[in-house]
């Protein structure tokens, strides 16, 4: 990455260029939609799927090039350095974290677009591809969001698109059920989430993540939530909303039905892209904005969000893994597996809140989420393959795949081993980094969160059982019927790329760790840095934000003072 500051263009033009991939994808969604109604209205469904899939993929590749211009020097002059930029009046970040993560999301999207047309599950192809593209725009904005309202809008846009594509397989009732359950749970969770955000705004007087952090932490250091009822309610409501998006226990009930009922490409996008973006958002809200409410400095067991999140993490790991043991449907198994995986990643989020080196924990979270997303997308490609050839996606349908399609079975083997977390695959190093970051959270290197890490290790062992069931079906059972009769290229690519990612970043983990660490630093950048926000260079910055922050700081200081006096009633002078 270049270390020199790029030549500043006209600030406004630069801002538009920095979100060029997002704008382009949004526009391309319209192009795909209109191309469908203009040229393919009477074409057979499979043909429309093929043509529109290629059209959507073309647009995504161009967006990928535009996103690439943010990490490598190009004539556009918009490559990002480690310097911390925020654009559009401080609502969006333009730093290495957005640049690298948007690349990951766009590559995942390309694989999804290759996968989708292989299986003729709907006749609303224009709508499907347009909604997938728009949900991706929202994911990219969610990753970049630096302000609570922008974040909420991006989150809602993303899930709104996903609700619809989950229900797009109109011939099957299960698909409608999937969409409806996802929608009902999601809209209620969003209401809770928004209420929580409004309380945060009420307590701090600002919606900018870093200003919120400044207002909460102040000069006194982290105080946790001791005696802060409004703050506790806000955290609780925010956790409900985030817990739903991450499918963490106890907000997970929608996930198995939605994953099983929705067509595999739609379910895979809910399980990968949406989860990756949601985890970035959750990390930003919890570790950045609400960093002051994590726990008292240096002690993760004091009142704060660290403890409830640790409990959610423990419950997700345990329940996800135990429920996965008895699943017979492959997609349902993946759903419970993804609940359990969310539990592991939440260990890293807790660590990011209480660690003295949060960048390491966040780097681990990002590393894990990227490798998890590629592995899960590959596994869902297999589910789509089964559903296309056999009409079902039960675990038994995998029987004998090892003999019929040795290379594909080998790829799935790699993905399963990576999800278990065995070396030398990427999942192992992801888990290692997550658990190590959680162990090093205490004051002066004291071990803490040991119980959570121990639980994570036990759960990894449990999870091996059901992942190995997939392998047993492929290799030890005789082939039945037509499993894997033909190999569509749409299944080939996600599966092999997923396996290649798991293997490559398992052998050379540093190749992904370093960009993710580089991304974590600006993502967490300290509240003192006003993120290059100045009214002179930024035509959108009209509000006097410094005043707001100062007022909020003063308010918080008074609250802290009151809280202290309540804590020590006998202290003279209180």
């Amino acid at each position, binding site marked *: 990455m270049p270390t020199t500051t790029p030549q500043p263009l006209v600030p406004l033009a630069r801002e538009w260029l920095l979100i060029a991939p997002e704008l382009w994808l949004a526009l391309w969604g*319209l192009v795909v939609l*209109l191309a469908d109604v203009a040229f393919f209205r009477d074409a057979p469904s499979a043909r429309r799927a093929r043509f529109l899939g290629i059209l959507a993929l073309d647009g995504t590749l161009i967006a990928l090039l535009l996103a690439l211009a943010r990490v490598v020097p190009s004539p556009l002059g918009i490559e990002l350095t480690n310097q911390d930029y925020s654009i559009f009046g401080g609502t969006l970040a333009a730093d290495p974290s957005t640049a690298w993560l948007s690349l990951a999301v766009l590559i995942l999207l390309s694989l999804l677009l290759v996968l989708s047309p292989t299986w003729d599950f709907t006749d609303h192809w224009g709508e499907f591809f347009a909604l997938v593209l728009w949900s991706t725009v929202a994911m990219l904005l969610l990753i970049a969001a630096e302000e609570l309202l922008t974040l909420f809008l991006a989150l809602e846009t993303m899930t709104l698109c996903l609700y619809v594509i989950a229900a797009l397989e109109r011939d099957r009732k299960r698909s409608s059920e999937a969409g409806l359950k996802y929608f009902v749970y999601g809209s209620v969770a969003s209401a809770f989430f928004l209420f929580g955000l409004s309380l945060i705004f009420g307590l701090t007087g600002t919606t900018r993540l870093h200003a919120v952090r400044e207002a909460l932490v102040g000069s006194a250091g982290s105080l946790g939530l001791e005696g802060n009822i409004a703050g506790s309610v806000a955290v609780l409501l925010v956790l409900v909303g985030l817990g739903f998006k991450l499918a963490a226990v106890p907000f997970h009930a929608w996930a198995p039905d939605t994953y099983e009922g929705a067509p595999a490409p739609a379910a895979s996008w809910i399980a990968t892209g949406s989860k990756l973006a949601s985890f970035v958002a959750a990390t930003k809200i919890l570790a950045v904005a609400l960093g002051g409410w994590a726990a008292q400095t240096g002690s993760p067991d004091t009142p704060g969000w660290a403890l409830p999140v640790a409990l959610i993490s423990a419950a997700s790991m345990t329940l996800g893994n135990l429920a996965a043991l008895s699943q017979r449907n492959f997609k349902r198994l993946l759903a419970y597996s993804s609940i359990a995986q969310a539990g592991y990643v939440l260990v890293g989020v807790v660590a990011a809140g209480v660690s003295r080196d949060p960048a390491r924990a966040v780097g681990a979270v990002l590393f894990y989420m990227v490798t998890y997303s590629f592995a899960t997308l590959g596994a869902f490609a297999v589910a789509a393959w089964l559903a296309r050839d056999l009409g079902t996606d039960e675990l038994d349908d995998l029987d004998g795949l090892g003999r019929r399609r040795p290379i594909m079975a080998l790829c799935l083997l790699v993905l399963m081993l990576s999800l278990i977390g065995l070396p030398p695959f990427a999942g192992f190093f992801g888990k290692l980094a997550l658990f190590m970051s959680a162990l090093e959270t205490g004051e002066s290197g004291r071990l803490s969160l040991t119980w959570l890490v121990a639980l994570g290790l036990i759960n990894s062992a449990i999870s091996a059982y059901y992942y190995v069931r997939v392998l047993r079906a492929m290799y030890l059972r005789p082939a039945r019927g037509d499993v894997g009769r033909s190999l569509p290229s749409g299944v080939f690519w996600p599966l092999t790329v997923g396996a290649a990612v798991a293997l490559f970043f398992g052998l050379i983990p540093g190749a992904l760790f370093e960009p993710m660490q580089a991304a974590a630093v600006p993502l967490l950048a300290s509240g003192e840095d006003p993120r290059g926000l100045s009214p002179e260079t930024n035509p959108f910055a009209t509000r006097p934000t410094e005043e707001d922050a100062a007022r909020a700081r003063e308010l918080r200081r008074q609250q802290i003072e009151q809280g202290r006096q309540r804590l020590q009633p006998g202290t003279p002078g209180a």
Partner: protein
Amino acid sequence: MILSRYLFIGILLLFAVGFAIAPLILVRLVAPARRGSFKQQTYECGVVTTGETWVRFRIQYYLFALLFIVFDIETVFLYPWAASYLNLGWFALIEMVVFLALLAVGLAYAWARGALRWL
């Protein structure tokens, strides 16, 4: 301190609720009440009520309603924009063109998919 800033909203709320309730109370106090079976019937725009309350509406009504909302929202945005157009400059013009283009695309899509055909 904070409450005083919301005082106007509170006054507005009181006024709005009062505006709705006052006529009802006034009617109770002033108007003579002579009840009868014909008068107690459900009011349906002056014509005789037919059928049950739980009738199904054609899904097409909803499509038309959705399209109506598109134009409704357009008007809501266009009025304040037009009122302060001279102060806003080129950027606002471009933004409004983008907004209208998006609405036009939406209408074109609905039209092409046959939402305007009454079956």
